[in-house]
């Protein structure tokens, strides 16, 4: 998104693609993780928000869920689950964090290398098709009216995908607001405090709507 005073509301649709890579134990997971495309790692952290999945998830990334339920490695699962990509690390940093936790576990217990998983892990990636909704926001106050009308996939594009698109990993709303100078710094700070990792997209939309309505209209929805 260009840093102009007009905010173009876009939307997106995601399609999942199998990479053909599969792991049946921790050693195979590690081997694949070393060089699987960063798109795949991104998908296993964020793709679930747009793919068919039960909302009440126990783990918020697929690696942690697999470690817990298929490898029966609860300690590793907890460590992997604590990796939070919303904090701004790029996918290569995330990849190294995952590998470090796996290496720690493998150092502790040699048997864990080859213990067969109950179900194989399939490495997936995704493609995102982005299109223009032709809706525009001309001033920050429009956020209060427009956010509740945005689709969840539009929220994904502007609030999550933006962090991967931008040089600085921030969402499109903050990027736009900073174009107005320091006037909205306090609002940007509140936006930065919304952690998208533990919410569904509809919950994120709700949080954003509440924030903008409270800020611009002094009310609640």
């Amino acid at each position, binding site marked *: 998104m260009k840093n102009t005073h007009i905010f*173009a509301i876009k939307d997106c649709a*995601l*399609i999942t693609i*199998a990479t*053909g890579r599969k792991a049946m134990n921790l050693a195979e997971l590690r081997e694949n993780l070393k060089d699987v495309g960063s798109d795949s790692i991104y998908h296993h952290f964020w793709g679930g928000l747009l793919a*068919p999945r039960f909302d009440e998830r126990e783990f918020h990334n697929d690696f942690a869920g697999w470690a817990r339920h298929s490898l029966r490695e609860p300690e590793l699962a907890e460590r992997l689950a604590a990796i939070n990509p919303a904090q701004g690390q790029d996918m290569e940093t995330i990849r190294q964090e995952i590998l470090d936790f796996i290496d720690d576990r493998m150092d502790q217990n040699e048997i864990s290398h080859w213990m067969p998983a109950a179900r*194989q892990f*399939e490495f997936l990636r995704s493609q995102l098709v982005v299109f223009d909704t032709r809706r525009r926001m001309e001033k920050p106050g429009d956020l209060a009216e427009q956010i509740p009308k945005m689709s969840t996939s539009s929220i994904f594009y502007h609030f999550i995908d933006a962090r991967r*698109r931008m040089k600085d990993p921030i969402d499109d709303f903050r990027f736009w607001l900073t174009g107005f100078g320091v006037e909205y710094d306090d609002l940007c700070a509140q936006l930065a405090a919304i952690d998208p990792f533990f919410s569904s997209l509809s919950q994120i939309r709700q949080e954003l709507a509440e924030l903008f309505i409270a800020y611009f209209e002094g009310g609640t929805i």
Partner: protein
Amino acid sequence: MSKLLDSFAAITGPDVINHLRQLAESLHGAKVIHVNSTRVGGGVAEILEKLVPLFNELGLDTSWEIISGGADFYQCTKSMHNALQGNHVHIASPLLAAYEQANKACAETLRTKLTEAEFVLIHDPQPAGLLEHCPDRHGKWIWRCHIDASHPYRPVWKYLRGKVINYDASIFSLPAFAQQLPHPQYIIPPSIDPLSDKNIELSQEEVNRVFVKFDLDPARPLLVQVSRYDRFKDPVGVIQAYRMAKQFIPDLQLVLAGGEASDDPEGEAVLTEVREVAGNDQDIHILLLAPDAHRTINALQRAADIVLQKSTREGFGLTVTEAMWKSKPVIGGDTGGIRLQVINYHTGFLVNTPEGAALRIRHLFHNKQRMQEMGRKGKEYVRENFLLTRHLREYLTLLLSLRHGNEYRIDLS
């Protein structure tokens, strides 16, 4: 006019439909052809029946063609189906010859259309051989596999792989079904049509009529499994589970409701076996329903207290989706697409044995509040993820992806 899309808006909300329209804009006028082997019976035909008009309403120029053949062709493709699901099935040369011949003959009829189309979607193994008969094709060809191909019988898969290897992409219902192929393998779960006769809301009077029609007692607990008479659906295992549960719930009734698909020559043998196992138990109702008995199936699913789908192999299990849409808890086999839908303690239970199914049947009848809660969660889960509108969106996204390349982000804006 887009009456069909508008009618979906009442269920999904208008935003979902607007989203589809915007996504489809740049595909306006694209020629799309779907090819499968039957217009009636089975999940594929049911999906295409609605998907094709919806593609058209969104502005894509879409048609639906059928490949047909003689008894040997259907015997061959049924064997391929079983082999993809893991059965060690030898397919004799004369059957393969019938398969080749049917594909060749179909290509003769459809060649001009297939060659000119921008996108050709070939469903399942039956028409997979068409591509090699269209050497001058212009468009992208996509092989859509609806079958659980996670552990295919290798000799048959090797033959079929030779047919699909030159496609531009393939689609599988679940990641576990994807195979080693030299083209992108998209993952698209199937869906149900909430407005079809099989899923539309029914009056209580209409539901009550199935109790009368099939001599069921509405005051007694009822288990229902709806599926073709196919060994992979494990109807015998369902009867065993029912018998074990009935020792604790004497009033229990069971309905096995099977349809017939015109491309399934094995159904009769399985039906005979099921009838033998059921014996003269008056509380087991084995129904053979006509392919168009959709409202009856709908009513039976709504009449059930618990819906079973105790498959040992399953492409996806649309009957599970249908049951969840009707707010029923589902006890399903721990396999294939059932795993994506039945979430233990949330929408139902996954089981691996008749004993496991019997235990969960007893558990649910002793926790009726949990049954209601599971039903509520199941319906919302389907609304978010497994309605035809989501399926349509993913097809459109796939077509755009094939048209625009392999980058993570395709920006049409």
